[in-house]
């Protein structure tokens, strides 16, 4: 049993390191993605001009609105990092783990809502078109449903922990 626990802790440490790496990669990817989106506006631009346009695009609210979903996903990987750390330290159904689960669930829900409904609608509003816009994809719905499941699981975990504590 102790050996099994040690194995899980060891695995969790590896995954903590890997998820930290992936979180950094996601942030770099996000910056690169935003940079690529603005750099192709005009042909034959040098790096200084590309950088200037990139920084100028930050002044537009659309730039920040389109970051809602990706930032939520990055935050999910950061929450996963804290959960892996908790498992690595041997806390199984600890408050840290439950908090991490709740954070992951709520951020997945926010990210999916952002991708499906918030970002397209806000972009529409900022472009003076008005109305409500939905951009649904199977991936976003999966994220929404798994996020919902995680959120409810953390809720159930909290209730179970409270019952256990009152029992003890």
């Amino acid at each position, binding site marked *: 049993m102790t050996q099994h626990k040690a194995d899980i802790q060891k*695995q*969790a440490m590896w995954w903590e390191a890997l998820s930290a790496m*992936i979180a950094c*990669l996601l942030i770099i990817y996000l910056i690169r993605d935003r940079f690529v989106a603005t750099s192709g506006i005009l042909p034959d631009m040098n790096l200084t001009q590309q950088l200037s346009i990139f920084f100028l695009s930050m002044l537009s609210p659309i730039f920040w609105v389109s970051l809602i979903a990706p930032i939520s996903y990055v935050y999910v990987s950061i929450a996963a990092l804290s959960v892996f750390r908790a498992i690595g330290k041997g806390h*199984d159904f600890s408050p840290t783990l439950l908090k991490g689960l709740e954070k992951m669930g709520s951020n997945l829900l926010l990210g999916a809502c952002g991708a499906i409904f918030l970002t397209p609608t806000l972009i529409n509003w900022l472009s003076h078109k008005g109305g409500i816009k939905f951009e649904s994809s199977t*991936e976003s719905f999966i*994220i929404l*449903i798994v996020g919902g499941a995680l959120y*409810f699981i953390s809720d159930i975990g909290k209730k179970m922990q409270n019952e256990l504590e009152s029992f003890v």
Partner: protein
Amino acid sequence: MIKTSKNVKKENVTIATNKLLLLLAAICSLIFFIDMSVIITCPVNQGLNSNIKIPLEGFPTWFFTPRFWIINFENLTYSAIMLLSVILFINLYFGRKIIESILHYMGTVGIILCLNTLFSTFILPGLKYGNLDVIPGNRFNFTLHYDFNIQTMTFGILGVFLILSSKANKKIKDDLESFV
């Protein structure tokens, strides 16, 4: 038993949560059926066989081709997650085997998400562009093709997280059972 306002509030929250769960289960099952219908009628949409004009025409033939399964692997994983979510939500709604169903859900969905990430990041681009090129002198040149995107990476991390926490929580459940 006298119902205090705190108890009534708690009951209302439980009822609202249960209603929300049932709504989510309904959404899941609806998406699952739409997804499956897209998979079944995909030879028309994806040009598996250009001679097919009507959905389901020549059904058994293309259903057993590897190409069909490769093209639809991602959709199939999504449908499987939908189905598992429906089962979980129904179990939670009716309060049946809560811990078992949560552990089962976490473990299975975790594996499916990891497979999905592996497939869509490395295997599908590899199959699409080819990892091995034959160069003169009968030698092979290996190029790793990959498709890195933020949603797939989130799926990967989520998958690993679900597998690990299902393992950790299963251990607690076993400990508790042995204790009882």
